[in-house]
């Protein structure tokens, strides 16, 4: 047994004990979805951090910074600043007005079931996209770190353990898994940042000097400055892409169902505010450390060593495929007699490889175990939010019209968790070879385009009505999916031998990687136009009730 599996085993045993403890309290839908609203603000802050700092942040951002420096760090900045939107505009009103889901807030004063159904569908789409991104990432990375576990085995294991947390322990177990994981992830990130600075004798000038003078992977003698913009987002389209991404990140967080749902686990709106304050502090420290981990990997490991060391046979095939495309490759491999040494670049491995270099085998095992734990905790949170959209919004409110019994709602909640989890496992195994890097960006874009306009307009515009909400959500969802489908993230012509594949083998029709710059305005304008072309007196009358409740907590769910 490798130390990585051992440490991960410890995490699983500890979290299963938490689940066993939580299961006794997980008997009602209120317990299942909100942990009885008895989580404290501080605890919830840690849990939000644990829910939010995903594998994409830890492995993905560290890798992006290691290869592209400044441009990769833009994700870190956007993901922290996004919480100001949550803090100022969403967290407290949501807690005051809703019960379990995002749809509770959107449909509060809007007529009819279609609004709630559409909000539930949008929740499901975002949760499922986000889950697949996490699980495919998990499968690929764990497969590299612990080759004894196959890809499919890893996905099934992640899915099964996560479902045990959710089904038996509900939101209480999920919360504590997220808290424990946030602690582990922050510890790993801080230790790694400390070791990076130790390497540079705690001299920031020396550290930044090294980062400004990187020998670029694959090219001979060229020097890269990772502190300057433009390595990833190049040219005039790159500039637009950076703005589009920024827009999706900053608005999208306020529409992520698994984050919004966390605000229902605290007793009051004031505690919801405390949770954002703690979450922003923890998340900020973590994202600051991505600079030290990422630039540390580039300077200490060298970009040419971040990747998978190929066996001799694979190395020869790799060279054969890639040699003609770029003379630059000559710097990427060394020949020793008949033995070729080739490192196939893989930016997801920057963090674990840096851990191995700085702290040895056991520290790398710890970091790999933390990455695995991260994926588990995030996927569990997503599953609960998807389950709440089906059980609470569609089944309880629409099918049963609020008149089912408690036992039935629990059965529906658990069944939908299994179905959603199973679907995510199935899709993740099928999508193994797809280039999934765009999925997290897409989840943010869908959330920002479909959900956020309706959340904000419902809270702030008396005139806003169900036609506006429906047209906004449908246009936002459809346009973000459409533009991503014709973007370079989905369309492209793969070179032979590429490890991942584009879904459509043709030149992209839409130039930007992230659709936010176009789809967010479309969602917003559709919501406004839909409202202006219709009228609902009742929704306008009920606006007073919404505003009073949102701002005073009168009538809030307890």
């Amino acid at each position, binding site marked *: 047994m490798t130390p990585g599996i051992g440490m991960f085993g410890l995490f699983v045993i500890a979290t299963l004990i938490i689940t066993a403890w939580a299961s006794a309290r997980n008997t009602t839908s209120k317990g299942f979805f909100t942990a009885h609203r008895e989580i404290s603000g501080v605890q919830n802050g840690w849990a939000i951090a644990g829910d939010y700092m995903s594998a994409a942040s830890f492995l993905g951002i560290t890798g992006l910074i290691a290869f592209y420096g*400044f441009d990769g760090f833009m994700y870190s900045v956007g993901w922290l600043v996004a919480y100001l939107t949550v*803090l100022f505009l969403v967290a407290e009103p949501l807690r005051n007005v809703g019960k379990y889901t995002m749809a509770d807030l959107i449909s509060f004063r809007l007529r009819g079931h279609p609004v709630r159904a559409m909000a539930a569908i949008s929740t499901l789409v975002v949760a499922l996209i986000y889950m697949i991104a996490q699980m495919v990432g998990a499968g690929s990375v764990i497969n590299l770190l612990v080759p004894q576990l196959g890809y499919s085995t890893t996905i099934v294991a992640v899915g099964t353990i996560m479902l045990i947390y959710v089904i038996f322990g509900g939101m209480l177990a999920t919360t504590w898994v997220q808290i424990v994981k946030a602690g582990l992830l922050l510890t790993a990130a801080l230790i790694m940042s400390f070791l990076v600075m130790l390497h540079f004798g705690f001299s920031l000038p020396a550290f*930044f000097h090294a980062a400004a003078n990187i020998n670029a992977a694959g090219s001979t003698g060229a020097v890269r400055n990772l502190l300057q913009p433009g390595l990833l987002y190049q040219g005039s389209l790159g500039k637009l892409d950076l703005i589009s991404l920024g*827009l999706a990140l900053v608005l999208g967080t306020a529409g992520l169902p698994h984050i919004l749902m966390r605000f229902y686990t605290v007793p009051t709106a004031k505690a919801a505010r405390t949770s954002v304050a703690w979450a922003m502090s923890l998340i900020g420290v973590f994202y600051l450390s991505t600079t030290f981990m990422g630039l540390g990997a580039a300077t200490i490991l060298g970009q040419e060593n971040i990747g998978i060391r190929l066996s001799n046979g694979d190395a020869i095939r790799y060279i054969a495929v890639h040699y003609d495309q770029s003379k630059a490759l000559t710097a990427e491999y060394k020949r020793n007699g008949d033995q070729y040494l080739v490192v196939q670049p893989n930016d997801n491995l920057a963090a674990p490889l840096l851990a191995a270099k700085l702290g040895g085998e056991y520290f790398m095992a710890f970091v790999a175990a933390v990455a695995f734990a991260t994926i588990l905790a995030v996927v569990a949170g997503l599953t609960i939010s998807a389950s709440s959209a089906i059980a609470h919004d569609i089944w309880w409110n629409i099918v049963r019209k609020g008149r089912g019994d408690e036992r039935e709602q629990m059965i529906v909640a658990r069944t939908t968790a299994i179905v959603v989890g199973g679907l995510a496992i199935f899709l993740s195994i099928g999508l193994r070879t797809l280039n999934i890097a765009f999925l997290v960006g897409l989840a943010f874009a869908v959330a920002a385009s479909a959900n956020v306009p309706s959340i904000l307009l419902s809270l702030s515009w008396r005139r806003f009505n169900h036609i506006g909400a429906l047209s906004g959500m449908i246009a936002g969802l459809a346009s973000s999916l459409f533009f991503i489908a014709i973007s370079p993230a989905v369309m492209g012509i793969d070179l032979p031998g590429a490890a991942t594949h584009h879904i459509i083998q043709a030149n992209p029709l839409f130039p930007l990687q992230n659709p936010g710059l176009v789809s967010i305005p479309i969602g917003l304008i559709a919501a406004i136009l839909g409202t202006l072309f219709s009228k609902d007196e009742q929704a306008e009358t009920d606006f007073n009730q919404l505003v009073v409740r949102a701002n005073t907590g009168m009538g809030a769910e307890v």
Partner: protein
Amino acid sequence: MEHHHLTPRDWDVVADDPTFRDLLSKRRRFVIPATIFFAAYYFSLPILVGAAPALMRAPVWGDLTFGYIFAFSQFAMAWILLALYVRRAKTFDELEAKVVARVREELEAL
């Protein structure tokens, strides 16, 4: 605190209550400028990357570029606005308590 028995008319009365109006306007006076400020500050980062690449690439402190320092400053900006909001929110909480207490009194008087 159960207020489900409030009628639509009661919600309108609270909505017109001077203390509640005060709460709303105090909240808006913080939240709207703060949101505009953070959006402007945040988006000036990617916009400057496109509009003033030479400035963003310029080394300012040793090798550290203006762009990277500006990116770091976004963290400070977010934390400062967070601290200001948390402090200001104490005023909101006091006003909120007043409104809730008054509504409760009026309901008991009925």
